[in-house]
């Protein structure tokens, strides 16, 4: 295709340094999630009042919080619950949302109606109500917050996938493939899925951040991760009380979230380009 050829030189470069940096950061995150002990000494929950709110420095690289806990240690140990919130919620939502969207977009009119009305019902409830009710039923905590956040991300994906599928299904190359006699499953796999996924992928990388931030907002309302779990969103929410006297309590967990979102997006975008390079 002409367009792809024109765009190719800009798109298919070698890995840029930014991509490398992001990839390395993600590997570090993986290590921290699997074996936090390798990257930080001590327990993230060891409180020492006498060392409370110390600034970043030699003793504590990133300072200490109001309980005198080392923030660097807590950030490292916080990778696991934080990624659980971000990746878990989005992963759950994408899976469920894609299945719903595909069945609605590809199924007959009746399937479409049933699925979309169910999605409508879910979507018509304020997401906050969904989250609060889920957390009131299941109790506050990281894992339950994942369900709550996923539940309100699902309908968005379902709708997006459905709209994409419908656009692609009626577009030129699917019609061409159909006329060439390709099987339905093959068309879905080769043509519809990759094309429907491209805009989805943009949303996914962004929504990993949104989900982590939603976790922080739930902590703000008192429903997020269970203290003393060092989940970043919860640390960020707790740090606001000390912002004017101890900025580091909130800023470093916030930075951790930003960098993680950034890394996922950079790597995600690269992955997306490859995906398109293959299918276009």
């Amino acid at each position, binding site marked *: 295709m002409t367009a792809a050829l024109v765009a190719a030189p800009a798109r298919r470069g070698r890995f840029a340094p930014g991509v490398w940096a992001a990839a390395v950061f993600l590997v570090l995150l993986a290590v921290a999630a699997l074996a936090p002990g390798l990257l930080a000494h001590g327990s993230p929950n060891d409180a020492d009042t006498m060392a*409370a*709110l110390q600034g970043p420095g030699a003793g504590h690289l990133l300072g200490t919080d109001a*309980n005198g806990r080392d923030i660097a240690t807590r950030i490292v140990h916080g990778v696991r619950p934080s990624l659980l919130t971000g990746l878990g919620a989005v992963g759950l939502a994408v899976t469920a949302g894609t299945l719903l969207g595909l069945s609605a977009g590809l199924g007959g009119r009746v399937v479409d109606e049933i699925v979309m009305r169910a999605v409508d019902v879910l979507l018509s409830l304020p997401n906050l109500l969904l989250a609060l009710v889920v957390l009131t039923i299941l*109790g506050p905590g990281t894992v339950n917050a994942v369900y709550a956040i996923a539940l309100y991300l699902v309908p968005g994906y379902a709708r997006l996938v459905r709209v994409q599928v419908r656009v692609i299904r009626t577009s030129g190359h699917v019609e061409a493939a159909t006329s060439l006699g390709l099987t339905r499953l093959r068309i879905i796999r080769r043509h519809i899925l990759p094309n429907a996924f491209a805009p989805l992928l943009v949303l996914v990388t962004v929504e990993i951040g949104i989900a982590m931030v939603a976790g922080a907002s739930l902590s703000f309302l*008192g429903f997020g991760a*269970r*203290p003393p779990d060092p989940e970043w969103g919860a640390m960020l929410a707790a740090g606001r*009380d000390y*912002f004017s*006297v101890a900025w580091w309590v909130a800023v470093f967990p916030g930075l951790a979230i930003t960098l993680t979102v950034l890394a996922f997006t950079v790597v995600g975008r690269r992955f997306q380009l490859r995906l398109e390079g293959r299918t276009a």
Partner: protein
Amino acid sequence: MRTTVPPIALAAAALLLAACGGGTSAGAGSPVDGGTLVYGVNNEPINLDPHASPQDVTASFARPVLDSLVALDAEGRVHPWLAKSWKISADQKTYTFRLRDDVTFSDGTKFDAEAVKANLEHIVAPATKSQLAASWIAPYAGTEVVGPHEVRVTFDRPHAPFLAALSTAYFGVQSPTSLRAGPEALARRIVGSGPFVLDAFTPGKGVTYHRNPDYRWAPEGAAHQGPARLAKLEFKVLREDSVRLGALTSGQVDVIASVPPANVARVRADDRVTVTSRQAPGGVYSYYLNNQKGPFTDVRLRTAFRDGIDFAAIVKKLYFGVYAPADSPLSPATPGYTKVDRKYDPQAAARLLDEAGYTARDGEGYRVKDGKRLTVRWPFVRAVVREQRDTLAQQVQSEAKKLGFDVQILDLTQPEYLERVPSGDYDIADLSWQRAEGDALGNLFGTASIPTAQRWGQNIGRHSDRELDGWLDAALATTDAGRRAALYGQVQRKVTAQAASVPVYVYSAVLGVRKRVGGLAWEAQAFPTFHGAWTAKP
């Protein structure tokens, strides 16, 4: 019927009063007549009617509008207010009040004996669904109108805390005309005879008042007499700590409630703002150990938990010295408070744990007995937490681990909590209980106050002791202040000896005040009153 006072005379009078008055804030210069004062608060009432609502914040919102029959000073002495005088019968069951005859509610209704009767009847009526006031006069039998300005209140049994209860805003006298409007109307609008008149209460935003120009009946001994100095008063709801603080330092509000302790030093350093605080009366913020079920039925374990953790040091550090470490179940601001000595002694605590059979430690360092870990469960509702109590709890959890306790903080929602506590299925529960009356001890340690499925109570330590109940009843049956103080002293010493609870810190109301503001005073329940306040707007 507005009387005009020459402005010069008014200013002179104000100056004179300021010279001998008991305002809390300094450096505001001379009093100013007129103007608007904005008070940033961290919370708002669900229901404005203090007869029905149990919230502290309801009392503080209702106080500008409502006067009481009597007033309580900082030393716990009772003064005349809408009642000129009173007599208590020899059997201590009947109170006869002579009322002022020159008082008018802001809706024009006259204040008289019928009004007092209407108010007390309103408090005890089931339709009011009173969640606090009615429980403070539980033995109430009835009110009799003796004359137009004389009224007699009787009880089934002696009830010494009656006058102290009457002095609170929960017993604020409302216009009988307004009371007839019913609970739903009262939840949004109350009418009284106070120095201010309510304009509008908008949930989520706050409340506005204007001055009652006819006000001539401030309590005896009040620093300011006559109508309020402020033309307008506004309470603005600013829930988020940093926002409330920023609104104060940027001059958008004049006074704020609840300056976060971490920020007190910084606010003090700002030369446009001061910080003033007052200890709240009643039960201090304490950890109540379940005396009825689980490991804390053993007094050795309770004592070890209380004395093996340096609560005083934690409190001083975490609250930057703003809240005092508690040295009794009662706050020093409570009538009948007695300081009880106890000291931090981790060695003694360890010995007690050994004695109780928890000699071994498991892999994670927790003590075990017969292979069972020393685990205590602590239900906690994070969504409604105040004063960084969650941070404090995490600190205590960490310190308790050194002692060998595995403290499990159970993260509950409010409905779960409300279901769990009456069932008694917990080992620690935390509470502070504001009440300017020694009988707070009865709420906190009396057998009748243990929460059950039928009836909530504040005795969440589920402490039950017949001798103690006897002392508490005896203290209700006498109005002799010395005798009551002695009885409450005994109670405080005994619950301390039994380690029924772990007193943690004394809650103080901490106000941030612009220096242009003067004439603030404190209600006995530790919230500010604005009758004599002024603000010199730049």
